[in-house]
């Protein structure tokens, strides 16, 4: 979504939420899912959380005035919901045993079994590398480089200062580079 289309989407959501919301889901689901996927351990968790983010966003906007919807920084706001849900999921997960799950993205039926296995392996390696980062660093790096958010959006989503977020990304990338060499 470019900046212009965001303004149009805001306007459409404010005018007719029910009509515009499906388009918002179509526009944002890829980025949202991709980012959430790197912050939770399984693709099933990622799908559940992404769904929950949209449902909460819809219910919240249904209660907002059109003016308030027009003024929303949509991406920052929606990612605030997502970051919180990922954090809660991590907290409740630490209280229950982890099970091994199939990587449903890697094993999508359109890929051959071999390509799936390679991709699943890469995904696992990246998960291990990202696990070396602090929560704040990981979130900042994922939102910046996997999702492609602006620093101002990441700052809003995480409730941290823009400068802090930049430093987190910087430090996070440095740690990943070390892990790769």
């Amino acid at each position, binding site marked *: 979504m470019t900046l212009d289309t965001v303004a149009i989407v805001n306007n459409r959501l404010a005018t007719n939420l029910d009509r515009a919301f*499906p388009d918002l*889901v*179509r526009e944002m*689901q890829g980025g949202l899912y991709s980012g959430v996927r790197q912050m939770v351990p399984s693709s099933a968790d990622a799908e559940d959380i992404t769904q929950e983010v949209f*449902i909460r966003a819809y219910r919240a906007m249904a209660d907002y005035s059109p003016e308030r919807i027009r003024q929303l920084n949509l991406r920052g706001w929606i990612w605030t919901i997502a970051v919180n849900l990922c954090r809660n999921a991590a907290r409740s997960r630490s209280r229950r045993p982890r099970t091994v799950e199939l990587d449903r993205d890697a094993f999508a039926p359109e890929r051959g079994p071999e390509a799936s296995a390679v991709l699943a392996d890469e995904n696992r390696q990246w998960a291990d590398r990202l696990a070396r980062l602090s929560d704040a660093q990981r979130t900042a790096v994922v939102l910046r*480089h996997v999702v492609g958010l602006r620093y101002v959006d990441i700052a809003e989503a995480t409730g941290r200062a823009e400068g802090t977020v930049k430093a987190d990304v910087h430090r996070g990338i440095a740690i990943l580079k070390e892990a*790769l060499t």
Partner: protein
Amino acid sequence: MTIEDQLAGLATKAPRTLAPEVMLETGLADGYVRHDGPTGNMFVSFNRRGVSSISLGDDAADFEVRFEPQFGRPVFPVTAPPTRLARALDKALRTNRIGNLPIDWSGMSEFQQAVLRKTAEILPGEVRPYSWIAKEIGNPKAARAVGTALARNPVPIVVPCHRVVRNDGHLGNYYYGTDVKRAVLEAEGMDVQGHEALAERGIRLTGSDTTHIFCNPTCRDARRTRDEHTVEFRNQSQARAAGYRPCKHCRPEVA
């Protein structure tokens, strides 16, 4: 490849099931399943309020295309409805009774709801005239409007609009044609031919000379009467004049 490029490469598509789930959960779209019906295949759509539409046919694409303009929201195929709804739906179709199957009444006027809820009380194997529904819902002059409300029944079969017939006893119209109406009625055990033969002779009520009670001809009490005890009436004044009183089950006063 820089590490930033590699991170960007981790972006994937969202699973295909994601958006439909969101639409269902927010009520912005309905889901639907294919189900066996009395005349072959049918499509059943539903949302969180209950069953929203039933459509007899085989063409899923056609069903989807016609759903959106009628209901103002899209419909997605799903693997199965929520368990409780699926169970109630199976039971309703097996027993030909609506039972506790939830229906989404939200798009309907109060009048249409009253007509459809009353229609759902007609037992399988029986039929009632339009004027009977009108009288029962306290609007005796609205037989024509009853016909219109039934013609727009979004949930045929489970709300058995096929069990409402013309005031003269003939089967009358049906969205899927009179032949389908006849087939559905026969499949649930009604003697359509016998009923039409009565209508042909102008007989709208039958009574029993042992109890002196008169009924709609398909009333389960009327069907219990043995042939040699059955008497036929053209209308209720004829029945009353003969000293008969209306049945308390099928309440045939207006037929």
